[in-house]
């Protein structure tokens, strides 16, 4: 980041080293970026709230919100304004201080993730050498906020939601962490940009198709991320049909909106992390990271934007998958959720880590094995399931006589 600001200043024909107030400039820039990132997070969450409602509506043969702005796009602005102007109600029996402060914990835990999350080849707030570690650490703040809100509400339903989420998020952090360690092992760095650089632009160069264990690790991470983000089928902490609304039952107005801001924003975080760690991040097919580094001028800007688009595309695809799962699957039960974590995901993730460690030794001895496995994995785990999926979709459409209709009812 600092280097980037330096190069910017040099671009204006100045030398930052000679300035007496460079530190102040850095701080000002940091403040500016923090502002941009917070707004990015909030606006993404808002747009996702609209997108989710439209996607859900399509899946349920409804229309969805389509009144405010083109295609109802400004619905999230209207909702935000409504929530901000509502009364900020604190129940009489609630623990006033904790009740008020709980949403901020969630918001802080969520916003801090964006510090280490990459967006494109050069665009990352801080390319820390402990990037992944930092992300895992700050995400844990969210659960503190949830427990606080549930406990301080002094409502039995909220308490149930809080205890459920404590059990769920803490349990699922283990397989998620182990699964994320696998790309770290392969890349030999904790830095998010470093991990992306260790992969390539083409799908067979991605870590997800590196070997069978990474493929498993990708799904372990994805399942655990769903659980940590309280998304269906793991939406137990706010299970509407069971717990009324879970930990946020007693909240209203702006504080209530924070919980949902975090939930929807988390969809970006979990998907961006998945594409960073396993799916090649911003890597452009056919252009290596070193070539990108060497570019200058307008060409550099063009390719920068291309890498940003590729990263956003991958991320948005997984965001869509998360929505898709939510509107398709039922919710699992608490004991099933715990069983799944401790009996399946945790052992498999540990086994995968050990397998990858051994695998790296094999590949170092015989690099040809690695190349062949990439291709086999890509064909067997990537192309074949995709073909099967398309085939099934075509059959379903044929069976029910559905018609594609993306143009009407906007």
């Amino acid at each position: 980041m600092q280097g980037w600001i330096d190069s910017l200043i040099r671009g204006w024909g100045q030398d930052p080293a000679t300035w007496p107030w460079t530190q102040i400039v850095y701080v000002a820039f940091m403040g500016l970026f923090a502002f941009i990132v917070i707004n990015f997070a909030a606006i993404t969450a808002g747009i996702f709230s609209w997108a989710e409602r439209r996607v859900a509506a399509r899946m349920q043969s409804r229309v969805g919100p389509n009144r405010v702005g083109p295609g109802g796009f400004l619905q999230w602005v209207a909702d935000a304004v409504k929530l901000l102007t509502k009364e900020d109600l604190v129940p009489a029996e609630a623990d006033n201080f904790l009740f008020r402060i709980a949403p901020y914990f969630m918001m802080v835990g969520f916003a801090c993730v964006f510090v280490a999350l990459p967006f494109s080849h050069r665009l990352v707030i801080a390319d820390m050498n402990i990037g992944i570690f930092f992300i895992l650490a700050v995400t844990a703040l969210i659960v503190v906020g949830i427990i606080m809100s549930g406990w301080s509400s002094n409502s039995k339903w909220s308490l149930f939601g809080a205890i459920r989420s404590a059990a769920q998020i803490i349990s699922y952090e283990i397989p998620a962490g182990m699964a994320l360690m696998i790309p770290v092992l392969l890349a030999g760095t904790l830095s998010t940009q470093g991990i992306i650089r260790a992969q390539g632009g083409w799908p067979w160069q991605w870590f997800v198709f590196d070997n069978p264990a990474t493929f498993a690790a990708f799904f372990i991470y994805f399942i655990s991320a769903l659980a940590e983000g309280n998304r269906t089928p793991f939406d137990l902490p706010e299970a509407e049909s069971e717990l009324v609304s879970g930990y946020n039952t007693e909240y209203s107005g702006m504080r209530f909106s924070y919980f949902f801001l975090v939930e929807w924003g988390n969809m970006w975080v979990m998907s961006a992390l998945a594409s960073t760690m396993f799916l090649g991040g911003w890597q452009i097919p056919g252009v290596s990271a070193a070539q990108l580094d060497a570019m200058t001028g307008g060409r550099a800007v063009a390719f920068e934007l291309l890498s940003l688009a590729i990263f956003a595309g991958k991320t948005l695809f997984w965001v869509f998958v998360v929505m898709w799962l939510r509107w398709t699957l039922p919710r699992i039960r608490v004991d099933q959720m715990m069983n799944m974590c401790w009996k399946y995901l945790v052992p498999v993730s540990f086994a995968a880590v050990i397998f990858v460690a051994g695998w790296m030794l094999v590949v170092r001895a015989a690099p040809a094995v690695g190349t062949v496995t990439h291709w086999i994995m890509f064909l067997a785990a990537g192309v074949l399931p995709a073909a099967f999926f398309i085939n099934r979709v075509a059959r379903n459409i044929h069976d029910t006589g559905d018609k594609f209709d993306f143009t009407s009812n906007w």
Partner: protein
Amino acid sequence: MTEPRRAPESPTMEMTSNKEVLRRIEYTGDMLLNMGPQHPSTHGVINFLVQTDGEVMKRAIPEVGYLHRSIEKIGEKCTYNGFMPYTDRVDYIAAMFANQGWAMAVERLLGVEVPKRAEYCRVIACELNRIASHLISAGTMAMDVGAVTPFPYALREREFINDLLEELCGARLTYNYLRIGGVAFDLPEGYADKVITFVDHFEKILVEFNRLITNNEIFVQRLAGLAAIPREMAIDYCLVGPNLRASGVPFDVRKDLPYSIYPELQFEVPVGRGEMGAVGDAWDRFSVRIAEMKQSCRILRQCIAQIPKGETMAKVPRKIKFTEGLEAYSRIESARGDMQYYVVAGGGENAYRVKVRTGSFTAMGIIDVLSRGLMIADLVALIASLDVVAPEIDR
């Protein structure tokens, strides 16, 4: 003095009032959770006093009566014809059946023969209503288990039925279609084609619905083996309709105590077989309803093919009066099972006593026993699987 009848040996029969239970929960240090009457998934205004230790319930006691509207008493104050719109409110999800029960009871008092065409109209309306009711049941059950999408799917199909019934009788929810001695309106022009078109469409949708939710792995995992009701227990607790049949008892009033034109129709009585877990578990109750919708489609096809021409109203006196003390009893297979009307005629134009026996009320009795040791998430699924409807419980 005869000895007081002893209840069957079962854990429910500790004769404790709800108040006493509350006091006891305080002693044990367990948590008392008031689930309802405004909880999103109690299917109406019912309250459950849930004694829990964390997620695991020790007991859930249903508290009914929030929706009591003294419909039976109203029946004693109205004329026989005048009570018909009120019967809609006995079970507003499947109002046609409540109509039919009342009509049949009074027809038995009158000793009047309903014309054949009217009987066919009744069966067509009832079977459409049965599909609509089961769709709501299946949809809400999926929603209670956490899958939201099957619910709009089910309601979308129910809309077609609502349209059909609206065309038939002008109402979409409380139909007031049946009359004592027949039906209010004959089938409109081209109605047969519309019903057949719907049935053709719906049978396809049923397959899609099964793919979406019935065989969904998570759904099956949630419901298989959950709150299984063995055959004897189902009979002991007076379960009726799909709840009873899911436990493997092939009792259906339409087959076993035939009424109307059902003896002339070919259909099967689906029973639970425990395909996914135990016989009579929540999944069986769900799948029996899905299978019944299929049978209803079959009945509809036959009715449309066989319906004769003729009158739709029998000759019924304008003012219905009986000698005092005359009584009649009718049983029909409602969407929620055996629905029974008992009427004792008063001296004048109204009844001395009206009693409605409904399936949801007896189903509430079993929740206390079944809920022991289940989790809170299971209680929601259990209530949904019994398909209780609040107005039918309290009337």
